[in-house]
């Protein structure tokens, strides 16, 4: 057992998989010699050499295209897109290419690859380096979408993503890189498509993802301490595949559900979850499902503005408290 940062967990997860399988290769901007702009890939070049850990030019289409070509001919590439906002300049590969090639070719083409990317706000980077764009990927048939919230989950879900035969978009939250957590020694492999109840409770279910998980947990503690409300917090972890059973079972126990989403309002992942719950657990509900999201705005840079935009512990607490006491 060791205490590890989320950032170091990324490098450990990649190293674990590269040590196990020589077909795993890694490419991206500044990932090798520089160890990543977030220092999440330090040491990999030294450990695995320049043939397997390769710096690329600022060419996001080439990065994802090359990952696809390598994957469809037998390798298992991990590609880094430095900031998830940059997915927009190589969106073709997610939207049209490796997501659809298996289907279009009647199962001939296989693309076992992982796209790692720094997602989310809180770092005062402004509107083009702060977005939570997991919902951009969730809407595309053929992709899998994962977003861990702890160092342990980073390793386990990254390992599961590398070993998965489908393309996986792996969202690392930039504001979690410094967070520490206990991680056991030895190989760690988790399972995609499994949500985790990170705080049991009986009065309401909170569904959260990535940086919203620690905020939801803090809000749950505050609700308990200040209002006697006992919330169950579920870390969704994987948007595709989606563990609806864990969420539906929780809602059946608590009768209320709140989503906490960092993405802007429209078509955020919570909308899909609420839709499923409304459809399949309507008679378990004692009140309306409530979505707590970033407003439908581009993210601002200044501290005061960004803090106001992204759901805070206080806003989560207040929203849930008001809704439950209404």
């Amino acid at each position, binding site marked *: 057992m060791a205490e590890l940062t989320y950032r170091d967990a990324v490098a450990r997860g990649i190293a674990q998989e590269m040590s196990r399988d020589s077909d795993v290769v890694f490419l991206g901007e500044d990932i090798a010699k520089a160890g990543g702009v977030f220092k999440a890939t330090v040491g990999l070049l030294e450990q695995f050499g320049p043939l397997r850990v390769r710096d690329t030019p600022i*060419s996001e289409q080439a990065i994802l295209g090359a990952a696809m070509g390598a994957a469809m001919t037998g390798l298992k590439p991990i590609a880094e897109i430095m900031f998830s906002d940059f997915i927009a300049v190589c969106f*073709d590969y997610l939207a049209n290419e490796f997501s659809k090639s298996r289907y279009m070719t009647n199962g001939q083409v296989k693309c076992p690859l992982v796209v790692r990317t720094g997602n989310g706000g809180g770092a005062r980077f402004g509107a083009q380096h702060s977005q939570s764009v997991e919902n951009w990927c969730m809407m595309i048939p053929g992709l899998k979408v994962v977003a861990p919230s702890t160092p342990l989950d980073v390793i386990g879900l990254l390992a599961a993503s590398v070993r998965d035969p489908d393309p996986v978009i792996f969202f690392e939250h930039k504001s979690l890189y410094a967070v520490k957590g206990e991680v056991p020694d030895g190989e760690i492999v988790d399972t995609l498509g499994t949500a985790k109840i990170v705080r049991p409770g009986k009065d309401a279910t909170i569904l959260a993802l990535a940086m919203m998980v620690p905020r939801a947990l803090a809000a749950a503690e505050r609700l308990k301490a200040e209002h006697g409300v006992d919330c169950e917090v579920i870390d969704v972890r994987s948007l595709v595949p989606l563990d609806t059973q864990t969420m539906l079972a929780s809602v059946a126990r608590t009768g209320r559900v709140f989503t906490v989403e960092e993405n802007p309002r429209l078509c955020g992942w919570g909308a899909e979850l609420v839709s499923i719950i409304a459809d399949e657990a309507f008679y378990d509900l004692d009140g309306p499902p409530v979505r707590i999201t970033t407003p439908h705005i581009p993210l601002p840079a200044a501290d005061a503005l960004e803090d106001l935009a992204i759901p805070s512990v206080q806003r989560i607490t207040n929203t849930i408290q008001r809704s439950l006491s209404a």
Partner: protein
Amino acid sequence: MAKTQTTAAGPSVLVRTNDGIDADLRLRMYRSQVQIREAEQRANDLFLQNLVKGTSHLSLGQEAVAAGCAAAMQPGDLSFCTYRGHAHTLARGVAVEKVLGELMGRDNGLLRGKGGSMHLTSIEHGVMGSYAIIGAHLPIACGAAWRAQYKGDKDVSVCFFGDGTTNIGAFHEALNFAVIWKLPVVFVCENNLYMEYTPISEVTAVANPAADRASAYGLQPIMADGQDADAVYRTAKAAFDKARAGGGPSLLEFKTYRYSGHSRADPAKYRPAGELEHWKANRDPIKIYRQRALDSGISHAQLDEIEGSVKQEVDQATEKCKAAPPTSVDILCTDVYADGGWAWRN
């Protein structure tokens, strides 16, 4: 052997010679061109009969590029094609029936109707896909070449695209990428003079859309006559040999001409009067190659026999496809994910 020369006027041009191509190879390239011509013509006929739906982008007039390149490839080499990919798919040995069946949405189609005209793929033949987003497959070919480099495999990735592709970002990203990693990939531009409905010269900063860009990436500008299968073969072979030997990528530009419009929707009324007729009369790849074959001592009878057998092959394929059942609706939701299904939730 092929000889190239660089002139002050511009890119190197191929000096045509007849050495290095024996009768068997010549007959093979002739057959390939005739097969593409017949199959593409048939696809057009079937479209007019409403038996092919959607769209199709034909390679009529461009047969020599596909035939010459495929002949220069080795088993295991990989083809990456565009939506104008029927010719390259056939040239690697995929059966006419499989291609026509796919165009007709039949169960015997290459992809059982899940891809259609623009996505022909046959991994077992090295046809790694036909990509309908301009430029997307150039980086993908780089990735396949990276795998060969990393694993020590000796195959070459060959990526075909049109002149219009040279103006999209992925073209430039891929060229830079291939050069800095010295990848065994060959980029083949089929310059058929038109970017969809617009003359390429009206929308491109340079006269030769691919070759004139080569020097920006430290590559030799290489152009050859795309209507002459021998010239294509020699030019391609030299580039493939270089890539296989670890010499890195090449960018080739073949000047050619398409007889039909960009797609089924395009009657190509933008062409100057007489241009199509000129190319058909004087620059038709099959006429040129038939004469080349005769000049090299191959008989009329041998060539006639090839034409007859190809015609029969295409006729039989057509009949089989017409008789084949439509694609089974059972496959609507298969193969979205590797487990064979489409499940996104439990």
